[in-house]
């Protein structure tokens, strides 16, 4: 099982000091946090995507590439990558690039975003959000799996003879999670492709998560990707810890009371009761997290939100220390107990390469010299079987075919 953290990249005033970090300060802090996540033994760092202040993470692959350069084992992911407003062509390129520069430590989580105006800012219609997510993901998959793509859809201009470069590392696309809070269509989308499903889980009552995961698992099995227990499930979580439970509550309360997401609404007590937010001792976090298994089953990835609401860097690093020293080692041990053998681990690049090639050497894409003829002669890569001429008996294609 994988454990890690995710961040929404908010820049929030620390209500106890009045200090609001600059963008530069928060971005530097995020690199420090990610590095420390690896140092304390966590497995995953995932980064959100926003296109408006007070958030800084507009370009997740740039940040994740920098983190990849500063770490060696940390799995890099997103929470989430906007499949609606990003061009799927650019996503295919960016995340294949991230695979290469991180040496296979990249995966991604797709989402539709929660900020309405991002749609018009990126030239999209929010009323078409769900159909865009479906169409764009279908194209994204093809761009990673087919060297040359001819495509026509409703929400972007057509492609003829397009090759997304670089080809995915070892010819294996990054693993994809689909994130959603309560949209059954997204659980269905994840299930139909046999992809992972990540339930946001935070800010919402557990029954939303339970219903979504149950639907995803059943549909995963229905689509023939394995049993319901073999579906790939990730969960969010939100914690604040001190050795002494009451210290955690006292220290976190001003952050809770003023946080943009839940401030001035329910009390900390109501919210910890109604959602997975856990404020207390490491043991309380352990107990609560182990309880998630009761309503989602054995799952693959647990990510915590620990750096939001204006919490200072020093505090966040202390939270990581507690996770790494006291919480995660116990969780690894306890989650392994009674875990059915059929329940797989979260896919990694290595496991996907093995599943694709067995013991054979994975594909290394080597392009042909540029002849500008992708349109007519199939793959521009050396290992691809030479494509038969496409049958054009006239025009430019016929001329080129004849000249070979």
């Amino acid at each position, binding site marked *: 099982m994988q454990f890690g953290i995710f961040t929404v990249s908010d820049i929030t005033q620390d209500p106890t000091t009045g200090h609001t970090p600059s963008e530069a300060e928060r971005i530097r802090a995020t690199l420090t946090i990610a590095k420390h996540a690896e140092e304390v033994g966590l497995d995953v760092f995932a980064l959100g995507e926003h296109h408006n202040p007070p958030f800084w993470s507009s370009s997740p692959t740039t940040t994740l590439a920098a983190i990849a350069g500063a770490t060696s084992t940390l799995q890099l992911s997103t929470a989430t990558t906007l499949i609606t407003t990003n061009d799927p062509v650019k996503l295919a390129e960016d995340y294949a690039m991230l695979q290469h520069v991180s040496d296979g430590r990249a995966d991604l989580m797709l989402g539709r975003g929660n900020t309405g105006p991002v749609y018009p800012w990126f030239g999209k219609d929010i009323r078409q959000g769900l159909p865009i997510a479906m169409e764009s993901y*279908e194209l994204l998959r093809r761009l990673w799996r087919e060297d040359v793509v001819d495509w026509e859809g409703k929400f972007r201009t057509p492609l003829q003879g397009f090759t997304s470069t670089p080809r995915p590392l070892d010819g294996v696309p990054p693993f994809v999670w689909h994130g959603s809070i309560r949209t059954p*269509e997204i659980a*269905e989308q994840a299930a*139909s492709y046999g992809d992972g499903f990540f339930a946001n889980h935070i*800010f919402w*009552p557990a029954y939303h998560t339970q219903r979504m995961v*149950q639907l995803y698992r059943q549909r995963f099995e229905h689509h023939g990707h394995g049993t319901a227990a073999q579906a790939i499930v990730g969960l969010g979580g939100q914690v604040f810890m001190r050795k002494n439970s009451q210290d955690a509550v006292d220290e976190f309360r001003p952050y809770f009371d003023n946080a943009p997401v*839940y401030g001035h609404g*329910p009390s900390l007590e109501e919210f910890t009761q109604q959602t997975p937010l856990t404020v207390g001792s490491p043991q309380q976090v352990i107990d609560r997290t182990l309880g998630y298994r009761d309503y989602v089953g054995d799952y693959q990835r647990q990510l915590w939100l620990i750096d939001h609401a204006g919490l200072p860097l020093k505090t966040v690093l202390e939270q990581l220390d507690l996770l790494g020293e006291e919480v995660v080692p116990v969780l690894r041990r306890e989650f392994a107990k009674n875990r059915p053998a059929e329940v797989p681990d979260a896919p990694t690049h290595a496991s996907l390469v093995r599943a694709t090639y067995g013991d054979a050497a994975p594909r290394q894409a080597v392009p042909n010299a540029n002849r500008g003829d992708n349109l007519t002669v199939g793959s521009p890569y050396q290992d691809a079987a030479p494509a038969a001429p496409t049958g054009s008996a006239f025009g430019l294609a016929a001329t080129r075919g004849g000249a070979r």
Partner: protein
Amino acid sequence: MTTRIVVVAAGLSTPSSTRQLADRLTADAVSMLRERGADVEVQVFELRDLAHDITNHLLMGFAPPKLQAALDAVAAADGLIAVTPIFTTSYSGLFKSFIDVIDPQALTGLPVLLGATGGTPRHSLAIDYAIRPLFTYLHAVPVTTGVFAATSDWGDGDGDGVRSLPDRVARAAGEFADLVGRTDRSGLVNDPFALDRPVGHLLGGLAGE
């Protein structure tokens, strides 16, 4: 089959004349339904008790358990009796906030009996100008007669020559009972997460199932 009537009263004081009007409308409607042989179950929600939960829902996007129970009851009802005080020309803010956290599809086809209270009869058309459009927008089915009770209606109604409050209550409850008697809405409630229904439509036909 049980006929489920849900009553929502947005009065702020305890006891409130809004609740009193709601009770009268409910009593008449229930007795008319029972005369027709219906097995009637009534759930009453005073929005005052849910005011904090409603605000938290507006801020957080999810309903605390007590409010969720009310929302589920409304969505699964065969008929809704909705009564609000008129504040500054229209339904109260609390009443509207409650309506705002109901799923926009949850009231489709729901027979609704509208009631309102106010200090003077001058506000009585607020039912038809303000409250009725709210429910028609949500594709609910408000019955033709809405009942407005001004303070004086609890006496002789200023002797203004129109039908007395009990007459108007009986007329509205009768229209409501007619409509509720014909619906089997509570048997048809649709759960988007139900696993036993065909789900090919989930991907809008894009995934080819």
